[in-house]
């Protein structure tokens, strides 16, 4: 029997998805948009390492922040790499330092993934930007 790990170290890659594009044109508050960006993709092996249950959330943490989201399996990803679609949830873990270029780093970011946490709604994310909970 394989013992589940508390957390795994990963390289976080962000980017666009077609579903995200379709959703944002419907409207950012739409279920279609929120569902398309409030998740990460990871490989089946890494999901198994963390003993993730189908509907259980995961928490992604970098040295700049932490956010809890849903997860889906993506067989084409290699172990140790997650894909996080651009959006308000992914933005919680990026550094705003641009090293004099204007551009924050949003790809190939070192992160950890662990099971658990509470997934926030879009309103809660915006409230947190306002200084709320």
């Amino acid at each position, binding site marked *: 029997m394989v013992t589940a790990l508390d957390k795994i170290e990963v*390289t976080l890659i962000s980017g666009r998805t077609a579903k995200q594009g379709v959703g944002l*044109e419907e409207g950012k508050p739409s279920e279609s948009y929120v569902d398309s960006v409030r998740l990460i993709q990871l490989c089946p092996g890494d999901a198994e390492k963390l003993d993730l249950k189908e509907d259980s959330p995961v928490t992604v943490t970098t040295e700049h922040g932490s956010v809890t989201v849903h997860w889906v399996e993506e067989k084409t990803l290699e172990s140790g790499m997650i894909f996080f679609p651009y959006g308000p949830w992914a933005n919680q873990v990026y550094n705003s330092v641009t090293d004099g*270029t204007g551009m924050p780093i949003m*790809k190939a970011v070192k992160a950890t993934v662990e099971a658990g946490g509470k997934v926030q709604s879009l309103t809660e994310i915006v409230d947190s*930007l306002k200084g709320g909970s």
Partner: protein
Amino acid sequence: MEHVDVVCPFCGCLCDDLEITVEEGHITGIKNACAVSRSKFLNHGSHRITSAAVDGKKASMKKAVKEAVEILSNARRPLIYGLSSTECGAISKAVEIGEVTGGIVDNTASVCHGPTILALQQVGESKATLGEARNRADMVVFWGSNPTAAHLRHIVRYSVMPKGMYSTEGRKGRKVIVVDVRQTGTTRLADKFVKIKPNSDFELLQALRATVRGDELPVDEVSGVPMKEIKELAEEMKNCKFGIVFFGLGLTQSEGRHMNIDAAVGLVSELNRHTKFVLTPMRGHYNVAGANTVATWQTGYPYAIDFSKGYPRYNPGEFTAVDLLASGEVDAAMIIASDPAATFPADAARHLAKIPTITLEQKTTPTTMLSKVVLPVATAGVEAEGTAYRMDGVPLRLSKLVEPPKGIHSDEKVLDMILEGLKEVAQ
């Protein structure tokens, strides 16, 4: 009524072959569109902001504009940001507002292909239109870009599948190479997928450049790619008739940023000693190229423009939105056709909630949710006409297909109302 050759106002492809049916003032049918374009045209009325608002309460347009004028005229250092999803007339007005207020004008290029602009200003570029790619290219390289997710018809319409004047065989006559850190929809249709280690594009680009030049590198692999494969790729690139590199945010948003683009231009430059090779950035928002173009006409600079001295100054890293918000330097913001609260790192986005933010937007977004003043506007390319610039720099005319909701004006009109108000205050 049937509208033909309609330009799609979503991504930098600006596909101009859409056929749209309008019945009784509503869009009821659409042909030739990708899934995102279809969503844009058919859902342009959903989640719509129907009234102006101040402090979260409904207000008349007149009152909201007056509030916006007051905020901007009282600000010591206002930021005017966004502009990539509207037409050029609105962009022009926004730049003028930047000048009148002594503020800073930045557009979304600063978080997409800003590093590309920085590099191209240093080293130049060898470029071509998408029409030339379609008609001539026999080698297409997608480097750090995934059009199957971000530019859905690029492959079908411009780069891979179409038969052109000199590319008569279409897909069969083209070699497609994808360089990426992971498998994507685009890698699946490639003839060759070059999988590289994250954050190592610069090294591979330089190794390829050296190999094309004939240098022998005393290593077994670079960026996780065996030297044998690098040598084969260099030979294939040298031996094509017309090659094009379509590069994306895989190069601009990872370590190296503008230096990655510098290296890509260097590779293309070296390849031009052997054959014809060009490169084109995969611009995301449909008129981000127009935002750079219009800002350059008016100020000499494409983004990150500061008017505080009374004349335009340019300094990405200092006058770019993420830096200005993260440092808390700006004391007011006006956001046009963009959603920084959903696209910036949280540290930077948080400042928008601390300062009076004015947002011109069609739909509810995280940015409108934290704005002091919200001004609803018409959707350019659907409810308002104008001009937009395709990713390759070709300007195309956007159509007005239906009327906007009653009392809702175009971005340009609303910005003009604010500009006039600011001029009155200044007198």
